[in-house]
């Protein structure tokens, strides 16, 4: 085992913000259309979030980042890095971060890049931000995990492929609402899920996505983090995991020794679906909305291909005053306008005029 990753300078989350589109497609709509409701007792989520016809990863990142900046109360000009992790960037070539930075007044003195690692692109952006601030290259960096995921019509993934995510202003520990204790990243070449260039929809290995991919990578990253920090599940108040469905995060929590109480916040997949690169980072915002000073929080992402990033944070007394400066994640969850399959198919460009 290698050692836990820690930056030279103590860093943490100075501000956080979430975003979930307003629209929801009930899983029963998909089940009725493709399977005459045959699977209606075994649906992976209740409903999923659907972006409006004028939304994409850039517009959603802008709102989440605006919320994060409001909570951090940081001058946007002091943000020296903007990294957006997603597998649904609106342009194949032209960084989403350029649009986000311009709108938020971060330009021009910043670096920016799009990060890709399937569903862990968001935590990948956070790792880079921790390193950037942790090395004193900058005082603030903006890391975003956001997706408008697409599933092939009739495919199992269509039930869950959803839209949403979160943004984090990473900065010095003294200003943080949650201080980073350490992180562990773990990857292997595992072709559980992939999308080739120019293809609209991804391919996946059905049952292969479970044990050798999701469970293996998350438990490896988390166990190594535990060992390196000399912690166990009992030391954490809350934990959140990547959530491709309702069951996987609950199962992996149990495997690692967490009880139901520890995952009562942040398990949003049943209500919004799998927000891909947004999923674990969005779950963390729900925990921060509800946490108290001194609480230790674990987040572990999973990205197909495959890998996991695990982080341990300790909440500070700065959290409580910052929470109310932006909408709570639960407010976005509750802002649910139900749509039917027809509207969804048109908005997501599955049918064209």
């Amino acid at each position: 085992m290698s050692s836990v990753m820690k930056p030279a300078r103590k860093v943490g989350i100075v501000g956080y913000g979430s975003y979930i589109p307003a629209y929801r497609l009930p899983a029963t709509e998909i089940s009725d259309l493709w399977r005459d409701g045959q699977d209606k007792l075994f649906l992976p989520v209740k409903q999923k979030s659907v972006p409006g016809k004028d939304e994409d990863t850039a517009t959603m990142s802008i709102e989440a980042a605006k919320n994060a900046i409001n909570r951090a109360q940081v001058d946007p000009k002091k943000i020296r890095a903007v990294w957006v992790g997603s597998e649904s960037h609106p342009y194949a070539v032209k960084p989403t971060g350029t649009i986000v930075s311009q709108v938020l007044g971060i330009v021009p003195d910043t670096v920016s890049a799009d990060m890709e690692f399937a569903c862990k692109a968001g935590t990948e952006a956070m790792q880079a931000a921790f390193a950037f601030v942790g090395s004193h290259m900058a005082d603030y960096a903006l890391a975003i995990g956001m997706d408008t995921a697409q599933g092939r019509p009739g495919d199992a993934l269509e039930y869950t492929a959803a839209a949403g995510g979160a943004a984090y202003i990473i900065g010095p520990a003294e200003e943080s609402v949650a201080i980073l204790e350490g992180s562990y990243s773990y990857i292997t070449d595992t072709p559980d899920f992939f999308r080739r260039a120019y293809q609209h929809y991804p391919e996946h290995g059905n049952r292969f996505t479970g044990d050798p991919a999701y469970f293996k990578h998350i438990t490896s990253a988390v166990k190594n983090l535990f060992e390196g920090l000399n912690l166990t599940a009992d030391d954490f108040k809350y934990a959140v995991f990547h959530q491709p469905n309702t069951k996987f995060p609950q199962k992996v929590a149990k495997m690692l020794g967490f009880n139901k109480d520890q995952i009562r916040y942040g398990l949003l997949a049943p209500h919004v679906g799998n927000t891909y690169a947004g999923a674990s980072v969005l779950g963390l915002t729900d925990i921060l909305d509800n946490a108290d000073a001194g609480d230790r929080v674990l987040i572990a992402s999973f990205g197909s291909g495959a890998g996991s990033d695990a982080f341990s944070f300790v909440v500070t007394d700065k959290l409580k005053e910052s929470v109310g400066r932006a909408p709570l994640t639960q407010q976005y969850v509750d802002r649910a306008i139900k749509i039917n399959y027809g509207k969804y198919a048109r908005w997501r460009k599955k049918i064209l005029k």
Partner: protein
Amino acid sequence: MDIPRYWRLKNQRYRLQGKKCLDCGNLSFPPRLVCRKCKSRNCEPYEFKGMGTLYSYTTIFQAPDRFDQMAPYMVGLIDLEEGVRITAQLTDVLPDDVQIGMKLEMVIRQIYEDGPKGPILYGYKFRPVLKF
């Protein structure tokens, strides 16, 4: 799409940047070179907060070609807090739920895509304010 024009107008579309007359304090959006009130040219950029109330609205069913993807959509006359009335698309609200006088806030959304190969135009729209 006229890319140079899109690029030039980005502060207006992204940040609701208008003009403030330094002689009489009058605000304008879209920005005007000459103050409408006192004819002064002594103006500086001014960013509106993006909060307002709905004065009136209409629904567009027959949209110009480039907005066809978005139709039907609602266009509103919005009274900004700073006292300027502007025109903008409404978003995240169903026709049955729109009410004259409702509180609105600015968000950035896609205005249109210039076909599958062209650039994507982003800009301000207004939605019912998220209370928190």
